[in-house]
């Protein structure tokens, strides 16, 4: 559906440069509109499912931070409370120290337990959330109209299931708890530092400010080079992809030198920018570390001076503890700024996921359903509980509260149908056609004339703007979509098969089909012969859209799949790809078998199909310009005659 894709404006996607490992380095500005709202929605999503568990997690984080702060404070207690007094008093009673160590050990144990519980719970929370999101995305996506899939590229949709979900996993399971942990640590460390020494705390703050400023500067430098590196990487990759795909042509034209020349140019550019980007990113760590040391030294000198002069009541033990806090303080600050970036990144992904979930699903206001039916001797149709092989439309009339039954026959009428993928641009104009049950209607005309579009309307993949389509006399808008589609068979130009056995692929047309029915359908489609020659026959696994089969074989399977569904109406888009005459003959026979006795709409590419049709519609620019049987149209000496004889002038 190239056309629809071109006609509907694709969603505007923000391209976020990513590093190979999926992390965005600091300094690259990722912008998300309305981040707080998305964050709130994401949190609501998590908390509505795992609210209670999350509360436990928060408690655990508090506990473990508290325990680790207690542990750090122990250094002071050890020196000031036990060692120094023992040194000065000369006492050798280690009993109190043992008790203190026991107490701290308890704290540590609690801390470890808390952080283990937290991690354990977070597995269920993050994996559970992702599972729920994935399932919800998929289920919702199944309900979206075909238009959505035409308007969005497969790559964009897939990247939500892979990249966006992956970044979310990182955010929920790592960034968020770490963020919280860092925040709590900072607060508790700051409080502890204040209690130890106000002047030293202020000195630490100043040094942290300097550090943040410096690392911010470096990060933004690195970020700008990083963007350049991504651009260069994109260019090199693009060139490699193109040249590798065309490598045989390069060989045929002895173009190796030229190909290499351009590659070297791009490769050198990439080297240049990669070198710069990595250089600044690498420098960031040492700068922070050494500024941290500097802060440590300054505090040590100032603290030492204070301890000697006794200023502010600073003891050696307090100073030792403070210096440890000083080290502990810089780490969470760096961590927060790192987590912040990956959170923003994840929010961009969450934004895309939520907008998928917000897409309007296909609406269905149809109420006419397809039911098993029995036809009485007098021609009356009654509903049946059991499978009868006969179907009828169950039509409830609200006006007089009656229900009528209409036998499913396959009579299709289009009356004055107008359609456009976008309202401003109509693709089909005033299409009128009548197909009696069992008739074969062929559409011919140049590409872009609107042939494929017509087939999208009968099964309501798209809704028409004006006019009416009637199925057995019922407006298709009144028929429940699922029932309407069940009564239509469709064989598309591009064959799509699923990763499953041949048997399962055919059975896709009728899930409860017996093995016998599958064989019968395959025989009808002329597919039985080749299937039996496959290594595992009907149990052969197909992979990657049936890439282990030839084009012709794939088509035969698609025909068998339609045959087993046994619909009264068939929509066929003949394949144009060139397959050799022998295979083509087999496919053709399969198609003919399938069409027998069914109302068929066929976008014809083969001469025989066209000639054997009951009515041929010649389409041009969305209008039917000629209609009739082959003989009638040939007599008219119009467009069809031109196409058929190949006398059209090429220009």
């Amino acid at each position, binding site marked *: 559906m190239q056309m629809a894709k071109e006609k509907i404006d694709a969603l505007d996607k923000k391209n976020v440069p990513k590093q190979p490992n999926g992390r965005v380095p600091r300094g690259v500005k990722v912008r998300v509109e309305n981040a707080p709202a998305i964050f709130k929605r994401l949190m609501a999503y998590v908390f509505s499912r795992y609210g209670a568990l999350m509360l436990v997690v928060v408690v655990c984080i508090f506990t473990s931070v508290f325990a680790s702060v207690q542990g750090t404070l122990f250094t002071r207690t050890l020196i000031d409370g036990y060692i120094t007094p023992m040194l000065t008093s000369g006492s050798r009673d280690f009993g109190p120290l043992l008790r203190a160590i026991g107490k701290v050990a308890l704290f540590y144990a609690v801390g470890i337990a808390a952080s283990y519980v937290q991690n354990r719970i977070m597995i*269920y929370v993050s994996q559970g959330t992702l599972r729920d999101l994935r*399932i919800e995305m998929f289920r919702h996506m199944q309900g979206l109209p075909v238009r959505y899939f035409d308007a969005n590229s497969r790559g964009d949709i897939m990247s939500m299931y892979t990249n966006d979900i992956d970044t979310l996993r990182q955010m929920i399971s790592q960034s968020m708890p770490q963020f919280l942990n860092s925040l709590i640590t900072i607060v508790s460390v700051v409080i502890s530092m204040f209690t130890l020494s106000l002047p030293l705390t202020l000195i630490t703050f100043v040094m942290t400010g300097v550090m943040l400023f410096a690392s911010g500067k470096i990060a933004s430098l690195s970020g700008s080079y990083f963007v350049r590196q991504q651009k260069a990487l994109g260019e090199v990759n693009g060139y490699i992809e193109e040249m590798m795909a065309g490598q045989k042509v390069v060989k045929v034209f002895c173009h190796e030198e030229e190909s290499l020349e351009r590659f070297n140019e791009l490769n050198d550019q990439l*080297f240049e920018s990669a070198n710069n980007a990595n250089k600044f990113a690498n420098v960031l760590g040492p700068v922070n570390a050494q500024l941290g040391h500097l802060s440590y030294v300054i505090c040590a000198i100032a603290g030492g001076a204070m301890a000697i002069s006794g200023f502010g009541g600073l003891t050696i033990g307090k100073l*030792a503890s403070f210096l440890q806090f000083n080290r502990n303080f810089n780490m969470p600050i760096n961590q927060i700024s790192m987590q912040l970036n990956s959170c923003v990144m994840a929010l961009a992904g969450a934004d895309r996921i939520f907008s998928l979930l917000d897409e309007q699903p296909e609406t269905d206001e149809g109420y006419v359903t397809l039911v098993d039916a029995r036809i009485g001797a007098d021609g009356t149709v009654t509903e049946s509980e059991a499978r009868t092989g006969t179907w009828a439309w169950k039509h409830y009339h609200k006006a007089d509260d009656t229900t009528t039954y209409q036998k499913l026959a396959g009579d299709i009428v289009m009356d004055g149908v107008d359609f456009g993928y976008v309202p401003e641009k109509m693709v089909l104009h005033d299409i009128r056609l009548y197909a009696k049950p069992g008739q074969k209607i062929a559409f011919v005309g140049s590409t872009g004339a609107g042939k494929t579009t017509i087939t999208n309307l009968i099964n309501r993949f798209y809704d028409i703007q004006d006019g009416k389509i009637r199925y057995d006399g019922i407006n298709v808008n009144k028929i429940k979509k699922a029932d309407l589609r069940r009564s239509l068979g469709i064989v598309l130009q591009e064959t799509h098969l699923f990763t499953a056995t041949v048997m399962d692929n055919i059975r*896709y047309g009728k899930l409860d089909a017996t093995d016998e029915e599958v064989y019968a359908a395959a025989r009808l489609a002329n597919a039985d012969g080749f299937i039996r020659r496959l290594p595992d026959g009907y149990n052969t696994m197909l992979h990657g859209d049936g890439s282990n089969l030839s084009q012709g074989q794939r088509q035969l399977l698609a025909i068998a799949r339609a045959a087993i569904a046994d619909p009264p109406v068939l929509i066929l888009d003949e394949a144009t790809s060139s397959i050799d005459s022998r295979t083509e003959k087999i496919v053709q026979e399969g198609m003919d078998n399938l069409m027998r006795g069914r109302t068929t709409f066929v976008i014809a590419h083969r001469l025989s199909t066209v000639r054997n049709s009951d009515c041929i519609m010649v389409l041009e620019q969305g209008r039917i310009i000629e209609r009739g049987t082959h003989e009638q149209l040939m007599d008219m000496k119009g467009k069809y005659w031109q196409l058929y004889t190949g006398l059209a002038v*090429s220009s």
Partner: protein
Amino acid sequence: METIRILGREVREFKRPSILTPIMMVLEVVVETLIPLLMASIIDNGVQKGDMHHILVVGGAMVLLALAGLLTGVLGGKYGALASAGFARNLRRAMYERIQTYSFANIDKYSSSGLVTRLTTDVTNIQNAYQMMLRMFVRAPISMITAMIMAFLINARIASIYLAAVIFLSIVMFFLMGRVTKFFQQVFRKYDALNESVEENVASIRVVKAYVREEYEKDKFTKAAENIYRLFVQAEKNMIMLMPTMMATVYTCILLISWIGAHMVVSSELTTGELMSLLTYCLNILSSLMMVSFIFVMVSMSTASAKRIAEVLTEESTLRNPEQPVGEVPDGSIDFDDVDFSYSSDSREMVLKDVDLHIRSGETVGIIGGTGSAKTSLVNLISRLYEATAGTVRVGGHDVRDYDMEVLRRQVSVVLQKNVLFSGTILENLRWGNKDATEEECRKACEMACADEFITQFPDGYETVISQGGTNVSGGQKQRLCIARALLANPKILILDDSTSAVDTATDARIRAALKEAAPGMTKLIIAQRISSVENADRVIVMDNGRIDGFDTPENLLKHNQIYQEVYHTQMSGGGDFDLHAGAVREAGEAAGRLALDQKEERR
């Protein structure tokens, strides 16, 4: 090991930064280890003794050390970036150069997407791993060892606790890591399968909806997602064991040292400052250990990439230029003398069997036959794209193996079945055939290939830019451009491998007529599905299952050759393509549509 040696060669001019990086990192470690030592001295000799002078002196030394650490750290970062980015560049270049020497057989061995992965993702993996190695691989163990030595220098009894802890943690991590990686490999395989099934669903959404299988698909996916969830939970449960083990070890060490240290300080075997330093080293040692195990995982993950790159670098081209090559193709005659051919040397299944074929210079020869009858394999031997397994292929009387390959390929122009245009203008694409061709010559070739008529319809004519993969021209237009490109080489032999399948019959006929008129001396081989394409050839080869079933004039074949008759009658009695007649109109319509789109984009 072999892999490392092959990759290692490509470090080339970046040996210096590659050596300097770890040195700088080691110096940085030394600095970082000395700082806690000076710290102890400040407390012991400065603060406790009330010696402000000592504090200032040692503090000053610490500031200098921090500055030295800054310098080495910055230099280490700089050299590391240079070495790894340079190494990656050399690897890419070496592979790309190597690939240029590949024969068709080599290219077939790796798919083109396989080569792209090696050149892109794999190189990036190696680049990251290399930088990591240079910066951390030496640094982390050294940091651990120096800290350990310092600890031993301060107090051997206490330091032995560290040694025990390190051994204990190493063992635990070794087992846990092994388990975790195995679990995760499993998970990610399943995860990939899940995503592939989503992709399949998205691609086939019309089939899903046409058969009303939404609920079925939902159930299928839900089950798979639940399964993935269970696997992930399993794997992560194993992973989170690492943290508590690490923490428990660290804390046990701290408490043990506090207890033993307190005793020693009291009995004057240890000073308070030394005790503090020991506590600092504790974190240093154990976090370095974590780092080492992390590097280990990272490097082992990149070995797969390294192997794949080494494969490309060591792949020998299956074709070689002769020592004293023939530098001229005398004429366009082609001879196959009892040729057998198979794509792989060890396979007994011959693709071509006992082919004996003699084509005169200047002849037009059609080739028909079903899929898999080896039509393409046959013509690929002529310009030595592949090499005959047995027998001799001669062009202009000489064995193709005696020619300089470039000479041969310039004189035997093949229009491949799966052909590509490259991003660039039409003119640039045409000049692949002959880089010195004037615009006039290009126009002439295009006229012959019936391409001029649509090129001049484009607003930019011959300067129209072809997008990557040639997506902005129709299939038929692409084929005609490819024919023109081949014609520009002005070859003695032109091979069209199903090159007009998307061109309508009338245009196809006109191209053939133009070729006949403009280049009567050129030997032309035309592979086609359509009988009309070979009807007017001097002679037609009928291929069947790797053998030549018939080689005669079309008239005689129609009389005597069963396969030819079969194909002829199917196509003439209405089994043919209606669409191909409609091709001309379609082409015009497509071209107009595409132009409109292009213009729209330009306006944007």
